[in-house]
């Protein structure tokens, strides 16, 4: 029997954004992953910079001097914003994963309402809190702190 040829149709990274109905939760999903990767990158850079102190004080000062610029200040703020979002969205996800915000199973009656509808008010509250933290942080970063 001849082998059946199949064409691979995996969405890959495009699937993080496409392929569904593009609800808000999908964008939060993608942003959660991207901010997680961003925080990890910052963490690696942080270890690299801090470890230079173990070599010599001069190297530490020159490395810190390299990062003392507006570009890296904005970068640092983006890390802060990513952390604020990641933490508050992570709290939402943690509560959902423990089944507190999904509601119990119920008979599906058309038009269907899913667990997305149950958690959405809390999601909106958490995103407002995240936005407030990010705005206040920006004020502190760029206005009050300098």
């Amino acid at each position, binding site marked *: 029997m001849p082998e*059946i*040829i*199949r*064409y*691979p*149709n*995996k*969405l*890959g*990274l*495009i*699937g*993080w*954004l*496409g*392929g*569904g*109905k593009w*609800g808000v*939760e*999908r964008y*939060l*999903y*993608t942003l*959660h*992953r991207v901010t997680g990767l961003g925080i990890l990158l910052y963490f690696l850079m942080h270890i690299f910079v801090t470890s230079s102190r173990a070599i010599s004080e001069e190297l530490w000062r020159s490395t810190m001097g390299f990062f003392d610029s507006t570009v890296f200040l904005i970068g640092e703020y983006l890390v802060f914003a990513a952390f604020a979002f990641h933490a508050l969205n992570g709290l939402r*996800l943690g509560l*959902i*994963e*423990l*089944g507190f915000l*999904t*509601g*119990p*199973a*119920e*008979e*599906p*009656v*058309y038009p*269907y309402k*899913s*667990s*997305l509808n149950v958690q959405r008010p809390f999601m909106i509250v958490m995103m407002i809190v995240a936005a407030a933290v990010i705005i206040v942080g920006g004020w502190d970063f760029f206005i009050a702190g300098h």
Partner: protein
Amino acid sequence: MSNDNGKDQNFIFRVRRFDPEKDPKPYYQDFTVPCPPGMVVLDGLWYIKENLDPSLSWRSSCRMGVCGSCGMMLNGKPHLACHTQVRELAKDILLVAPLPNFDIVRDLVPDLGPMMDKHRALNTRTIRDDGEEMLKPTDQYWQDPEDLVKYLQFAYCIKCGCCMAACPTLATDERYSGPMPLAQGYRYLVDTRDGAFKDRVKQLSGEQGPWRCHYAGECSAVCPKGVDPARAIQLMKRQLVFDYLRLSKLRYRKPAGLLPQEKRAKERREGIAEPPEFTVEGATSLQ
């Protein structure tokens, strides 16, 4: 708007084609299809096959949203072709493509085999010790309506694969079981007639379990039957966490038995068919 004037309106069906014997990769082909009000996408595909191109391939059967065969991407979103009206989705062009995250066998036919393999791998069937009773049932198992509601929503799944096509985690992760198998895994995890809770928990705690889901919710948004796989996966995580903390009662649950003697029918009711003979030669059990 001219969409509801009761007359036929021509739509362009932009169909993704792929013939494994001659095409190096898929391409789009346009067909003009006259669509009266209420016409579903599946009817449009049949029109193309009967009038324009008999080689167009897709999978369908029941035509009424029950069999789950005709899942496909319609204007970039997973739908069942048999219960999606053309005029609800499109103004003049309808993009028709096979479900992503599955290999394409031909045209609009996805290879659902890997999904069914993952489904089977999670032991999605009732597992009990009393095999003889399951094979030759003498009566029904006793289950409260409250226990039924805990899994009934997930038992409506028709395995169409729409949720798998919409899942962003599955798009980049081969090892993840996906929404359909996991929802069905949960359906049996909480079924009081099942007796394999400990084994299921052990299996679900591994790579094929629910932990790669971060609640994008697309599976529930696209499900044509309101099954809500995202809810099942989160409730499954809850069971796994509570069981790890030894707070779950399900670990100590005995599978539901037969009705108490006083509630059972005195004689087997007329009209209840005997179970069929095994179709596989030499088979002696459901395993």
